[in-house]
């Protein structure tokens, strides 16, 4: 017999009111403004924009506030909001070679043209808690050099590429790339779809996979060929104009991992590349993405693919934290009927079999 039950509306309403009160915290403490989140929790905003897959700092700040700082929940909120907006089209591909550089380093080439520019970074800090910050100390002003950086800095791949020692990426035709938000993923996926999946993918998941590939579950011997952070123009061609116009400027982080490749029958020994790109300043994400991108190319490059980070289906099907969180957390929802049926099954099996202890 199946009996449908309803109920819980009042309990749910009251639970949400309780959550809202808890989220606000002690009313004697000033409420957080979105501007404070945007200005002072900028790296959280960047992560939410990247994995929420919408570049809009204010929306991401609102999502962070609404989710009480739970970034995966905030990412979910942004993805849900996305479905309420029309799609106007796709931008011209951004030109990261023309980036207004704020940080640019290479772990492979000491003397690359333009130099090693550290920019705003936590690298080389001692990771000691700064109690002066707790006391509200104002920071010293940033130092301005007499001359700005060069307008254009060559990418490391362009430097090595001149000698033919590193693979080049074919620029492709003008066909629009595959879009996971329009068609469900089918395997094997092209590298365009893989990169879109990884760009939206959970930073923790990609970080763990990248780490596993370095520790021996995979065959990567990477160098951080180049990491660059800065602003790029986004251009779009409106139908009514027929020519590209700049619609805004966004900050992105780009990572080029350079991997040794012994060569094959068709290709001489050279360096191959893994690529990472993310909104804002998200260096850990971009690096992990680049390592996993390279790992997923194992098949294409004729390498043995026996590890999780090289398994396209495993990686692409489990990278999305909105899907993952939904499936794991749906277990909280009432499964009373399912459980009841399993309980009855266990009882029937017990009844059908004599008691084990007495039988022996």
């Amino acid at each position, binding site marked *: 017999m199946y009996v449908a039950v309803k109920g819980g509306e009042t309990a749910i309403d009251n639970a949400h009111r309780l959550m809202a009160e808890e989220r606000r915290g002690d009313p004697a403490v000033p409420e957080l403004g979105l501007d404070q989140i945007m200005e002072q929790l900028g790296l959280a905003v960047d992560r939410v924009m990247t994995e929420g*897959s919408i*570049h*809009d700092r*204010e929306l991401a700040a609102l999502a962070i506030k609404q989710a009480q700082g739970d970034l995966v929940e905030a990412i979910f909120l942004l993805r849900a909001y996305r479905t309420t*907006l*029309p*799609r*106007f*089209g*796709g931008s*011209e*591909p*951004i030109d*990261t*070679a023309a980036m*207004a*550089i704020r*940080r640019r380093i290479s772990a492979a080439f000491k003397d690359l043209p333009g*130099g090693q*520019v*550290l*920019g705003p970074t936590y690298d080389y800090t001692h990771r000691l808690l700064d109690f002066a910050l707790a006391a509200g100390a104002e920071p010293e002003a940033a130092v*301005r*050099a007499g001359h*700005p*950086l060069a307008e254009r800095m060559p*990418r490391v*791949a362009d430097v090595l590429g001149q000698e033919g020692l590193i693979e*080049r*990426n*074919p*620029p*492709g*035709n003008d066909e629009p*790339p595959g*879009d*996971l*938000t329009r068609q469900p993923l089918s395997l094997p996926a092209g*590298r*365009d779809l893989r990169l*879109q999946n990884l*760009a939206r993918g959970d930073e923790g998941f990609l970080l763990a996979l990248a780490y596993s590939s370095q520790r021996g579950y995979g065959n990567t011997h990477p160098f951080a060929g180049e990491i660059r952070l800065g*602003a790029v123009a*986004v251009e*779009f061609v*409106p*139908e*009514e*104009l*027929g020519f*590209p*116009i*700049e*619609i*805004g*400027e966004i900050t992105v982080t*780009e990572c080029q991992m350079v991997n040794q490749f012994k060569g094959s029958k068709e290709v001489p020994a050279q360096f191959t*590349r893994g*690529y990472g790109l993310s*909104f804002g300043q998200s260096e850990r994400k971009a690096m992990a993405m680049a390592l996993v991108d390279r790992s997923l190319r194992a098949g294409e490059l004729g390498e043995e693919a026996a590890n999780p980070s090289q398994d396209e289906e495993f990686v692409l099907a489990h990278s999305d934290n909105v899907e993952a969180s939904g499936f794991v957390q749906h277990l909280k929802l009432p499964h009373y009927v399912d459980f009841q049926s399993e309980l009855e099954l266990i009882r029937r099996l017990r009844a059908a079999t004599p008691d084990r202890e007495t039988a022996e």
Partner: protein
Amino acid sequence: MSENPAPDTPTGEAPTEDRRRWMGVLAKAAPEEIAAVWSGLSPVPAYDLLRRPETGLVMVRGRIGGDGAPFNLGEMTVTRCSIRLAGSLAGDLVGHAWVAGRRHDHAERAAVLDALMQDPARRPAVEPAIARMASRQAAHRAEDARKAAATRVDFFTMVRGEN
């Protein structure tokens, strides 16, 4: 460039390049800067909305490896608006705006300013303000580039051993 420009596209490369530049400046300006220019317009020109301000998404594309075939990185919010300016000697002028973000007032005013810039009679009234916005944007960029330049590493070689 498209092979089939829409009817209101200025003919020739130079006007298009010119318009690309000011539309970019208007898109990148802060809504408050646009509002300041707007409040300086006297009188505010009469115009009709051809397409009222609408917020949507543009899919931002990157390139595989930075230089290869395109892929979809993620979307950004964009607001667009189109207006027709009335009472111009140059005939009806249409202004368009496509600006990052969700500010309807930004897009609507940028579209009006785009139309005014196409009107030889009224362009001088708004051009200096747009030039000022452009130089503020350039100054901001130069400031960031000078801060970044101060973090450039100067390597020096340690002398080791006897030789």
